């Protein structure tokens, strides 16, 4: 049984080897925020995107099921009732890399987006709203991931 630290260390080694061999699929897009997607915590991800420390807010909402029958596909949504939002983020606290998606919102759409994310285990999921005035607000929700089927 590997500990989490051993596993992380190992995957870091693997990643290092791959990078050295030129195999690491570094972004095909210059603008893709690599550092944010490498982040391990909510605060680090937001920081990597140039945001300040996130504050919990009831004006931001995260939607999703209480229980997911399968972690491979978990429907989640992020929204805010406040005007002036620039970015909406979706994050899964216990995934190896927390950030799942960054939505760059314009005035032409409602600040309400839905997608589906993978979850390795039961975890909090976060919706973050990065506002035009520099405020960073978030909401969280716990989603339980159960084991389904025969497990074989």
């Amino acid at each position, binding site marked *: 049984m590997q500990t989490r630290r051993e596993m992380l260390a190992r*995957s870091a080694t*693997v990643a290092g080897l*791959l990078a050295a061999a030129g*195999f690491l*699929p*570094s*972004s*095909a*897009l210059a*603008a*893709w*925020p690599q550092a944010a*997607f490498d982040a391990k915590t909510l605060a680090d991800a937001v920081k990597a995107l140039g945001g300040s420390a996130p504050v919990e807010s009831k004006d931001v909402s995260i939607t999703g099921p209480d229980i997911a029958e399968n972690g*491979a*596909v*978990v*429907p989640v*949504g992020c929204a805010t009732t406040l005007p002036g939002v620039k970015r909406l983020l979706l994050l*899964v606290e216990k*995934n*190896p*890399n927390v*950030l*799942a*998606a*960054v*939505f*760059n*919102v*314009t*005035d*032409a*759409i*409602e600040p*309400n*987006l*839905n*997608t*589906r*994310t*993978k979850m390795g285990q039961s975890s909090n999921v976060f919706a973050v709203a990065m506002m035009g005035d520099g405020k960073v607000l978030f909401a969280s929700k716990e989603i339980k991931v159960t084991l389904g089927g025969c497990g074989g």
Partner: protein
Amino acid sequence: MADPMRIRAQAAGDKTTVRVLMSHEMETGQRKDSAGKVIPAWFIQEVTATHNGKTVLTADWGPSISKNPFLQFVVKGAKAGDKIAITWVDNKGDKRTDEATVS
């Protein structure tokens, strides 16, 4: 070449709900095949949505978005007959654009 997307864009009043399904593996780069070799990451990194040619949304995605991704958003002011186009680009540089007419 990647398979086409399915885009449904339905107007109700002055709002149009857009639902998109994309055909993509969204491989995380953290799984191993049966021989124990790491399966390289392969995932959509950027999604762009346009309404009659004008960009209304861009998104950056990581590999934790589910396989065959789903995206739903609401465009203000779009009406029946308008065009909604979606483009995705993955980390290998593959891209695909599909268009739907608002109904």
